[in-house]
């Protein structure tokens, strides 16, 4: 009994981390655009779907190698992100937060429709990255794909930190987020930074979609729920705080897997969202956001 309990827990933990890593990456994408523009990009979930579906076509239909397919898929979604910014966000003459958010909702519907036309309504199977059997750790099993997911999340986080702390472009993006006017007075082109934020957040979304597809079997309509969960993680972690988002994303995934396992798998989405609401009632700024920031933010 004792052993069974810890084994269960460990199993749920692995499942939770696997889900949570995806939420964390979606949340990072939300934050990147939020920091650059102050808006929530509701097409973030669609980036994830497009990345996954593109990868399916590249590997299963065209039989390309994993690495090459990965790069093409990420590049494709990045271009979609850039086009989205150039065609729908940048031309808005008097951008207000509400207007831009509604635009992103429209783009999300559009992308979803386009994905349905190209890939159909069915869900798409993709083989795991490696064929190895699941590893056994203290009676619990962990899929090799889960290890890929964890490794990818680690890489993305490291890349993210390195980019924003050690490169001039990254610092310029941060500067824009901290104080837009001061950044412009330093000669930083804020509009280009906004475009870059869309590009990067699309790329991160695509990576998340690519690595999760072998496990969840991607279909065109997955974006909404993935986006919602990622958004939840971003809010709980404190909007704009990407390291908070990673922790919150993992927590959300683990809570979800745990409540699915111990209480009811029917209610696991609801339970996770209720806990999220609970956190926000107690700490409106999220777990890692300062209450001072909340008052300054537009929402």
């Amino acid at each position, binding site marked *: 009994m004792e052993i069974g309990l810890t084994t269960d827990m460990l199993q749920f933990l692995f499942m939770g981390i696997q889900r949570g890593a995806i939420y964390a990456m979606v949340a990072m994408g939300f934050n990147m655009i939020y920091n650059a523009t102050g808006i929530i990009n509701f097409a973030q979930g669609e980036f994830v779907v497009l990345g996954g579906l593109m990868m399916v076509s590249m590997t299963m239909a065209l039989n390309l190698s994993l690495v090459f397919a990965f790069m093409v898929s990420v590049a494709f979604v990045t271009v979609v992100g850039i086009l989205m910014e150039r065609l729908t966000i940048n031309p808005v003459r008097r951008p207000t937060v509400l207007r831009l958010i509604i635009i992103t909702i429209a783009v999300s519907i559009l992308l979803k429709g386009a994905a349905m036309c190209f890939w159909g309504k069915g869900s798409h199977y993709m083989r795991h990255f490696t064929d190895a059997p699941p590893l056994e750790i203290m009676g619990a099993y962990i899929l090799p794909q889960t290890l890929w997911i964890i490794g990818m999340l680690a890489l993305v986080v490291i890349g993210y930190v390195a980019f924003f702390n050690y490169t*001039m472009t990254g*610092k*310029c993006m*941060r*500067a824009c987020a*901290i*104080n837009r*006017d*001061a*950044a*412009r*007075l*330093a*000669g*930083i*082109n*804020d509009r280009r930074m906004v475009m870059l934020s869309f590009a990067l957040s699309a790329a991160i979304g695509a990576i998340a979609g690519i690595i999760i597809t072998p496990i969840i079997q991607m279909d065109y309509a997955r974006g909404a729920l993935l986006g919602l969960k990622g958004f939840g993680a971003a809010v709980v972690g404190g909007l704009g705080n990407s390291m908070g988002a990673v922790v919150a994303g993992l927590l959300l995934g683990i809570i979800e897997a745990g409540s699915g396992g111990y209480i009811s798998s029917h209610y696991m989405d609801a339970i996770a969202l209720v806990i999220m609401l609970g956190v926000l009632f107690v700490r409106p700024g999220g777990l890692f956001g300062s209450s001072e920031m909340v008052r300054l933010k537009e929402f």
Partner: protein
Amino acid sequence: MLRLVNVNSHYGLVRVLKNVSMHVGQGEIVTLIGANGAGKTTTLRTISGLHPVKAGRIYFQDRDITGWPAERLVELGIAHVPEGRQIFSPMSVNDNLELGGHLVYKHYGKKRLKSEIDQMLDLFPVLGQRRPQYAGTLSGGEQQMLAIAMALMSGPRMLLLDEPSMGLAPMIIRDIFARIARLQQERKLTVLLIEQNAKAALNISDRGYVMETGRILLEEEAGALLANPEVKRAYLGRDQREVWE
């Protein structure tokens, strides 16, 4: 060097600048004084491209720069130190300077940026000691110096300063004004200055403009403005009683 011709500027429907015309010659220090809400800050923001021009023209070195975005004007050599020490508080002093010199990096590379930062630290030794610290942890005077240093990092020909003395102790204010005067000579800068502390500003200036409710009322040599009884009464806080009686 800088010329404004009948510039109008609005906040929503409110007309804030009403046909403002003024000029700043090469190598001059010019002060803009006026009460709160007179439109001084808006004037600077309009020049530096942060605020749109509704009507009128702005020329910089005989080039029409009306409607240029702020980041392009920086490249042209106009540096604006906005009101209230606009630094990047959650970043280190060093990062702030790097960002200030972001154009140097873009055009000349990393080495040049490093040497420019070193030069700037010679100019403001206090910042050298604080280099790895978060900019938000600096004292008010240090933050103002950092803000000025950041603006200078872009290698400007013209410096727009918005209330550099705001909220600072008198000793620090004196230090900052002395530095501005010295910088102007060493770097052959042209300076347009806004100040509540009109006396300190006019003391280092060549000329001054007086602004009221969006209009330029008066333009004179700094010395003459300092002696003008009306200006004294309204902005210098001296001899009030004599004039009233």
